[in-house]
C-alpha cells in the first residue's frame, strides 16, 4: 500500500503489485489511473514515498513442478516477480496477452529468464498470436502436462479462467485486485464473495486465492 508521505491528498494508499525485490530495493510497477497513482508517479529519484507492506499472501512456491503463468496486461507484474524468485525450482511456462504489442510490458526483460515455453497474444494482432490469452489454454495445459496455473489480470480474464481451466494435479491460483481502504485487514472494504458463501478480504486473506474458492458472478 503506497502513498506520498507529505500530503493528505489523496487520503488513501493505493494497492500496488511488487515487480521485484532485491537487496534493499523494491520495484513497484503501476499505471497512472487517478490522483493517487499520478501523485506517486510524480516523485523523483531520491524522494520519499510512504509504503506499508508487503501485505497479504503470495502464490504457492511449488517445487519441481510444471507451472503455467497466465498474465493479462499489467497482471504480468506479480507473475514476473514469481518468475524471478521461483524459476530455479520449477519448470515455468508463460501465457501473456494484452490489447496490442505496446501493452505487452516487459516482453524484452522476460527473454533472459528460463521459460520452457511462451505464448503471446495481442487482441489487435500486432504481435505474435492474434486473440486472447484464454484462447488455447486447455491445449497448453494438456500437451505441456501443467501441474498448476497461477494468474493475474483483469476480472473478465480471471472470470473466464474459472469457466475454462481443466483440472490439474495442483489446481489454479488467481491474484485478485480490489478497491481497498487500509490494506491490512481492518476496514473490510475489499470483501470478495467466496464459494462457501462468506466474504473474505482480498488484502489479508488474499490477494491469491484458489480459483475454486471464489464465487464468480454468473
Amino acid at each position, binding site marked *: 500500500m503506497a502513498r506520498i508521505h507529505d500530503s*493528505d491528498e489523496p487520503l488513501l494508499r493505493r494497492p500496488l503489485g511488487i515487480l521485484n525485490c532485491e537487496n534493499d530495493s523494491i520495484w513497484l510497477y503501476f499505471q497512472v489511473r487517478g490522483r493517487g497513482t499520478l501523485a506517486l508517479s510524480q516523485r523523483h529519484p531520491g524522494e520519499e514515498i510512504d509504503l506499508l507492506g508487503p501485505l497479504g499472501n503470495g502464490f504457492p512456491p511449488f517445487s519441481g513442478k510444471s507451472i503455467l503463468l497466465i498474465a493479462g496486461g499489467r497482471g504480468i507484474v506479480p507473475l514476473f516477480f514469481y518468475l524471478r524468485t521461483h524459476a530455479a525450482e520449477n519448470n515455468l511456462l508463460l501465457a501473456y496477452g494484452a490489447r496490442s504489442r505496446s501493452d505487452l510490458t516487459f516482453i524484452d526483460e522476460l527473454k533472459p529468464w528460463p521459460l520452457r515455453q511462451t505464448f503471446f497474444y495481442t487482441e489487435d494482432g500486432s504481435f505474435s498470436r492474434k486473440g486472447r490469452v484464454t484462447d488455447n489454454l486447455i491445449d497448453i495445459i494438456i500437451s505441456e502436462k501443467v501441474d498448476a496455473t497461477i494468474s493475474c489480470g483483469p476480472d473478465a480474464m480471471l472470470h473466464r479462467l474459472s469457466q475454462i481451466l481443466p483440472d490439474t494435479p495442483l489446481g489454479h491460483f488467481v491474484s485478485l485486485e480490489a*478497491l*481497498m481502504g*487500509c490494506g491490512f485487514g*481492518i476496514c*473490510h*472494504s475489499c*470483501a470478495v464473495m467466496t464459494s462457501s458463501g*462468506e466474504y473474505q478480504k482480498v488484502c489479508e486473506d488474499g490477494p491469491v486465492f484458489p480459483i475454486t474458492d471464489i464465487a464468480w458472478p454468473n
Partner: protein
Amino acid sequence: MAELTTDLGFLRLKNPIIPASGTFGYGIEFGRFFDLNLLGAMVLKGVYWDPRPGNPPPRIRETHGGLLNSIGLAGPGAEKLAPIVRQLAAQTTTPIIINVCGANDDEYLNVAGYFDLLPEVAALELNISCPNVKANGRCPALDDRHTYRLVKKIRDAVKKPLLVKLSPNAPQVVDVATAAESAGADGLSVANTLLGLAVDVASRKPVFKNFYAGYSGPAIKPLILKLVWEVTRAVSIPVIGIGGIVSGQDVLEYILAGAHAIQTGTINLIEPAASVRILNELHELARAYHITDLTEIRGKLKP
C-alpha cells in the same frame, strides 16, 4: 510534560486518545504497529449478537479529504468476539470499550448484557447511529424519543458505564443528546459518519447498493466540531469528539470546543500508528501553548 490524564467520571484515561470503532479492528491487529498501552482507551469494531456478512461490494469510495464507506458492520457476532477480547486484555491494560449493535431492541439488550458481564470490558458504547445497515440510513439516533426509549432500556439492564454514539444526521442532534443523557447515558460519542451519496455517471446509478454511505475523514471536522460545541453546551455528561481528527492540533480544537476526549477514525486506516503520533503531537503542542492540564482549556472556546 503536560497532564493528559482524562477523567470521564466513570473511567479514568491516561490520555484522551481513543481509536474509534470500525477503524481499529479488534485492537490486536494494531499491536504489531505500536504499544497498545500508550492509548487512552480503544473501541472495538461494532458487534451484533449474530454474525454479519456485511454489505455487497463496492464498500468504499474515496472523496476529496475523506471517504464514503458502506461496510455494513461485518463481524463474527458476540460469542466469537469474547475470546478475542480476553486475548486483547491479556496484551494490554488499556481500557477496552465494546461498540454494541442491534437490529432491534432485543439484540441490543443481548449484546449489551453479554459484554456487561465480561470483566475485561471497561465500558459499552451503544451504536445507535450506523448509517449502513438499514435503508436510507435509518437508525435510532435520528430521533430523540426512539433514543430515549432504547438507551433507558439498556441503561436499566447493564451495570457498566454506557456511552451512546450519536448520529450527525439527526435533524436535532442536541435533542437526541439530551434524550440520551436523561435516559441515563454516562457519556456521548459525537459522532458517527455523515450520510453521503456517490454517483456513477456511466450507469446513472448510486455507487453503493445501499444508496447512501457513511462519510468520514478530515473533510468533516468542522461539521462535527460544531456539533460537539452545541452538544457540550446542552449536556453535563462527558462528550468524546469523533470526526476527521488527524493531528494533535485537531485534538486541541475538539477539547476547546468542549470534548473530554477524542476518537481517531479514518486516519487509522491510512496510518496504523496515527494515534501515537497524534499523542506525541499533543504533548508538544501542550508545551508550546503552556497547557499543564487539559481541563484548563476544555470548552474554553471564546464565542
